[in-house]
């Protein structure tokens, strides 16, 4: 019997063998307006997913009777698959990468703040149907992750979340700088290169060497002329950090233009190809 759709929220299946966590999350999600069903057993979860028409599955990976990754694959193979948010205490990169390969929507490492789940679900609802878009995994090695993703801003959040889980062992300041720079470049590629057209894609490679991180982002646009970026803060003279706003107002562009200036200051190297539709950012690890 399918779970009835709530008036405002989503139909959610919560799969976790931790009874306490099930109770906390279930209460929180119900209060947020969602219809929540729960189970702590793998085979039972599969049966419920098959007959329940859930929008979202919150899935623990360490379940009795069946691996959560198997349930993920099963759920995503359905004709109208639910979004699956993986929750796990397993912090190995191989588990994360397998979850990405099997089209997990998000990956939450336990312990997490319960409100984080509510926020992720609210984000998925706000960006539907883009939340249902798939990421193609080209390489899923911890030292070389490469994916192809549709040009949707929602993808920037998803991919950044996966990539930053992979870099969880880095000191917080480095992680934060790289995350910010990566997001700026990825957003630029999706917004300006891909024109937010979800039929177009960006290609992203994240390479982890012993002494450096290298991210390469390739977008489907024509590139740009850096000398023509009068609407960007990098063109400003010293002492006038808002000079480019006049150009932006003239061109009718929203306030902004700080992305490149920010990114340059956050990483060690920023290298573009000739046409500037492909960029590499490098952060050295001492």
């Amino acid at each position, binding site marked *: 019997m399918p779970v009835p759709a709530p008036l405002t929220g989503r139909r959610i299946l919560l799969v976790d063998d931790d009874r306490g966590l099930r109770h906390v999350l279930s209460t929180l999600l119900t209060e947020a307006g969602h219809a929540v069903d729960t189970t702590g057993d793998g085979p039972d979860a599969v049966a419920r997913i098959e007959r329940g028409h859930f929008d979202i599955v919150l899935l623990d990976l360490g379940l009795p009777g069946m691996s959560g990754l198997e349930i993920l694959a099963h759920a995503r193979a359905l004709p109208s698959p639910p979004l699956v948010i993986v929750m796990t205490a397993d912090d190995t990169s191989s588990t994360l990468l397998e979850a990405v390969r099997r089209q997990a929507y998000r990956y939450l490492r336990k312990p997490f703040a319960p409100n984080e789940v509510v926020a992720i679900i609210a984000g998925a609802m706000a960006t539907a149907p883009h939340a249902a878009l798939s990421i193609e995994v080209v390489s899923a090695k911890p030292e070389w992750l490469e994916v192809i993703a549709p040009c949707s801003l929602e993808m920037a959040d998803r991919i950044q979340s996966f990539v930053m889980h992979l870099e969880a062992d880095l000191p917080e300041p480095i992680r934060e700088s790289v995350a910010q720079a990566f997001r*700026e470049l990825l957003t630029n590629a999706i917004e300006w290169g891909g024109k937010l057209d979800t039929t177009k894609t960006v290609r992203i490679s994240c390479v982890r060497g012993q002494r450096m991180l290298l991210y390469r982002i390739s977008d489907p646009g024509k590139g740009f002329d850096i000398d023509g970026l009068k609407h960007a803060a990098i063109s400003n003279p010293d002492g006038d950090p*808002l000079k480019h706003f006049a150009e932006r107002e003239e061109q009718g562009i*929203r*306030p902004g233009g*700080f992305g490149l200036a920010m990114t340059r200051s956050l990483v060690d190297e920023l290298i573009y190809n000739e046409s500037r539709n492909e960029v590499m950012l490098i952060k050295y690890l001492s």
Partner: protein
Amino acid sequence: MTIVEERVADVTILRLKGRLELDTGDMVLRDHVNGLVAEGRVLLLLDMHDVTRMDSAGIGMLAGKFLSVTRRGGTMRLLHLTNRTGRLMHVTRLETVFEIFHDEDEALRSFQTRP
């Protein structure tokens, strides 16, 4: 992102909470400040303590709204920058544009001496 508004005499305090980022927080900030400007309230103090993330679009909107209110004879000042948001204001050199405060009373007094 959410904004809680308080009014202290002519000054409007906006307490920002959440992500000041492209397509989410930046639009919320734009709409809120535009509403205040339409009412003639152009002395603004933005409490940034609970801004968890900010990107270039968020910074751009801060700068854009700063220009809007100053053109109407007002000003926008910042309060309680976190390490993260403070670093971004530094690298974009916007710390030379905004007056930034760590103490709310001091920030409010500044509007009396330099409205």
